[in-house]
């Protein structure tokens, strides 16, 4: 028994609804540019990185930025992109937008599409998908921004 009025119940439901749409925090993870060894990510070869999600939070990929380009991307058959997924499905959470022919002077913010929330506490994979055709090329830094919501 709650003893709440109908209004109080509606208000609580409304506030909880708003709260569930507000991220507890956002995080931008930069790949490449780390200093001692790896100063870029090589899309020509493709790359991936395992990342641990924080426990108790589910994540939504908000965007991907490609910048600090030191080798022009090509896209003879299919262009490069950055997906976010897991070991079973490499784009389970986010399908990256195509990077195209990005050169040093043209950093990219390709628009991808949300597929699902990253489960809290899981290990997810950020994957730089190589372009295909010709000689795949493209080196840059990559920033992935994720909004984490309380589960």
């Amino acid at each position: 028994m709650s003893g709440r009025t109908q209004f109080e119940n509606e208000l609580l439901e409304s506030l909880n609804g708003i709260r569930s749409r507000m991220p507890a925090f956002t995080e931008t993870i930069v790949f490449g540019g780390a200093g001692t060894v790896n100063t870029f990510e090589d899309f020509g070869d493709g790359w991936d990185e395992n990342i641990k999600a924080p426990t108790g939070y589910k994540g939504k990929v908000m965007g991907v930025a490609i910048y600090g380009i030191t080798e022009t991307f090509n896209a003879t058959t299919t262009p490069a992109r950055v997906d976010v997924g897991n070991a079973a499905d490499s784009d389970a959470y986010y399908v990256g937008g195509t990077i195209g022919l990005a050169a040093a002077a043209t950093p990219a913010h390709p628009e991808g599409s949300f597929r699902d929330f990253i489960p809290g506490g899981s290990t997810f994979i950020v994957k730089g998908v190589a372009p295909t055709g010709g000689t795949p090329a493209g080196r840059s830094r990559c920033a992935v921004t994720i909004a984490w919501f309380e589960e």
Partner: protein
Amino acid sequence: MGRSEFERKLEDVLSAAVLGAQKGESFCVTYKLARKDHDAAWKAAVPMLIGYKAEIMSILRFDASEASDVAETLDIGVLDGDEDAYVDGAVVPIFAIGSSDRVAPIAGVAGYTAIPGTGAALVVTGTSAGTVGITSYAITIRFYK
């Protein structure tokens, strides 16, 4: 639907407050530290903002280029002051290339201390008795008025 003026006003106020928060009363910054070598103690300073209190929301270890052989401990505190004021001896487990960890404690965990808005820079200190291990850290801090 039968709401009093007070109830309607309360809902308006709460909605406005939430919208205000969404529009930038608080924001997060993620500092990526250049790769750190666990064969020696290391320090990295990060700037803070005067007038904004802060909380450490996440400490992510990732992007290792060399596996480590022993666990490391991590402190975060005030540069040239109490250097473990906010995080004291958090354990970074032994790691392999391609692995990632979230290091506690962070905001929301019992015992965590919020950072006052003095603008004093933070210092992150890693201490290890190991001989190998190179990895990156991404520390996410929420600033709020």
